């Protein structure tokens, strides 16, 4: 699923960089395509319910950037891979958890996304 999302994102959001202007020397210009991925949390899903007290947060962001992961119990920096993926082990507090991811882009701008996850040990039938 993650792979499909990743592939879809790559196809849907390709951004051609300014470097793509044809060079005077080249007769057949080969544009450089930089894939800019929008910040997204792939797992867990927003408003999901979990019985686990820790989980692996997975998402996509600008390749080679840094994201700050802020939860009820953790705050940490995570490096984004050249492919634009990141993951981090996070702890979940009992009850409502807001998971916020802030991306520091290469151009020194920030972008953020938040989701809510409920941790509970018991769920009635």
């Amino acid at each position: 699923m993650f792979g499909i999302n990743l592939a879809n994102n790559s196809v849907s959001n390709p951004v051609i960089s300014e470097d793509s202007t044809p060079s005077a020397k080249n007769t057949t210009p080969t544009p450089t395509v930089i894939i800019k991925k929008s910040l997204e949390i792939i797992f867990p899903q927003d408003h999901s319910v979990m019985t686990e007290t820790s989980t692996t947060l997975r998402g996509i962001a600008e390749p080679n950037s840094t994201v700050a992961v802020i939860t009820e119990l953790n705050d940490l920096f995570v490096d984004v891979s050249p492919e634009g993926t990141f993951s981090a082990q996070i702890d979940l507090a009992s009850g409502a958890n807001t998971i916020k991811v802030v991306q520091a882009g290469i151009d020194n701008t920030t972008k953020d996304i938040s989701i809510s996850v409920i941790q509970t040990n018991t769920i009635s039938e």
Partner: protein
Amino acid sequence: MIKNFLKLFYLSSSLIILAIPTYIYAASPTATPSATPKVSATPTNLEDKIKNLVKENLSATESNLKESINLKSLVGYVGAIKTISAGNISIESDQNIFQVSTTDKTAITKSGTTGKISSLAITDKVIVIGNLVKEDIIQAKMIKVIPEETDIVETNAVIANIYSIDIKKKTLVLTINKVQMPFTLSKKNTVKLEELKPNQNIFAITKKYQGKDSLTRAKIL
């Protein structure tokens, strides 16, 4: 030359002809039939044990799968109760209004004790866990009243420029959005002040508690 070639051709042809029946003979079903497995007339205790174990494993796997499917279809929302009517409440969560329907199986808890829908009050902050039957309708399995937080610690991540550092006092002044703000270091910080220098750009995780700003993480950009 031609004679030699013909000889060679005849020789090789005869060899092939000879080889074919040999191959067929080798493949013919002359092997002795394999022994048929012996089936004991009465099932042993071991067989019964294995059968029971398989049954137990199957039912355990089935219940695990059911739980997993059930969990995946569940949603959880946090919000404030806006209205209460017979068997239903509505909550406001992230500026969206959700209708929450209950059944006699819905578990309602308030202040740690089991309650009824009548024990809920408007403006109560609740966690609702259930199934999203429509875009804005939740069939609740659980409604839990949670206390309103008073002393909230606001955590954020910002890009800041270091204006000044006081290693002795363990404080620093950061420029954020062209505004200079004093920061102390939070209790569980991992900031190494001696590695930081004025004019550096950092990615900072900050906390605001009771009006005071502190720095908990810093990464040089």
